[in-house]
């Protein structure tokens, strides 16, 4: 559109290209979003320790530890996809992207199964109908924790799951573009910012898993 002479380049403020800078800036706001959610959880837990259960009593730690492993694997496949296109390897890019999509979708699937089991045990976000019992205990045992437990749990993990789901959709789009040959070793911005988002989601889960399931 506008003719610009080749020797007149804009100032390289951040020394990275616009798309990557934009993604990083967006991720900063994501940090603040999860700060709000996790911060609320920490505060409520400090204020009402009795409303929360010890790790493993209500939540299924082995299942989620496995799920955490799945998500870490998906980070590796994502970074492999990026490494492949860095070498100009189109086949490798598509293969690893597909693997990432499958692992991401599997993570969401496991989360849905987990939700189904937990709600069946009375562990729900609604304050008035909360009646979680210890896993494996008989019906009618004492209620574990309190309404805040369910609310914070589902809000935090649910928003993370939403981020993963959006990530899977974006990955599908990236794969579609990759199959059309949109990325090359010299033009891989789309793959790189997709990777940044995906690793960020993984990073948030690492923190959430520790804070929500293990502490």
């Amino acid at each position, binding site marked *: 559109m506008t003719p610009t002479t080749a020797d007149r380049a804009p100032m390289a403020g951040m*020394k*990275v290209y616009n798309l990557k*800078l934009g993604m990083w800036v967006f991720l900063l706001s994501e940090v603040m979003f999860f700060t709000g959610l996790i911060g609320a959880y920490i505060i409520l837990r400090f204020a009402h320790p009795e409303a929360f259960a010890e790790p493993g009593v209500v939540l299924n730690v082995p299942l989620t530890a496995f799920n955490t492993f799945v998500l870490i694997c998906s980070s590796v496949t994502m970074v492999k996809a990026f490494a492949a296109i860095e070498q100009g390897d189109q086949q490798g890019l598509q293969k690893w992207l597909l693997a990432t999509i499958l692992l991401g979708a599997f993570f969401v699937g496991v989360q849905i199964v987990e939700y189904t089991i937990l709600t069946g045990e009375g562990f729900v976000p609604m304050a008035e109908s909360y009646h979680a019992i210890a896993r494996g205990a008989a019906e009618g045992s004492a209620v574990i924790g309190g309404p805040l437990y369910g609310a914070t749990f589902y809000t935090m993990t649910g928003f993370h799951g939403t981020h993963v789901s959006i990530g899977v959709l974006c990955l599908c789009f990236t794969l579609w573009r990759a199959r059309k040959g949109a990325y090359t070793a010299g033009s891989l911005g789309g793959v790189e910012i997709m990777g940044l988002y995906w*690793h960020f989601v993984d990073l948030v889960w690492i923190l959430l898993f520790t804070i929500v399931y*293990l502490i």
Partner: protein
Amino acid sequence: MATGEGHKAPPYMMVFGVLAVLTVLEVLFAFTGLPKIWLALGLIAMALWKAVLVALYYMHLRFEPTRLWVMALVPVPLAIILVAVMIKEIFTTGSGF
């Protein structure tokens, strides 16, 4: 543009190994029955270690210009201020605000 050109490929698989091992260690550590405060500190230390590894190697922060990772640290003090002030209020007013 490609971050991989100026340096040899980052140790992706080694980082993956460390992340996997730390995850197992975390789960084991969580059920050791230590006092809550030590459990919490140890777990948070391990989680932060993992998070930093992901940011440095998978998000390539280690290979980016200094100004980019300085920018990436901007929200951290704000997050600490928010949570610290609210915790301070809880501890001085007993249970609840």
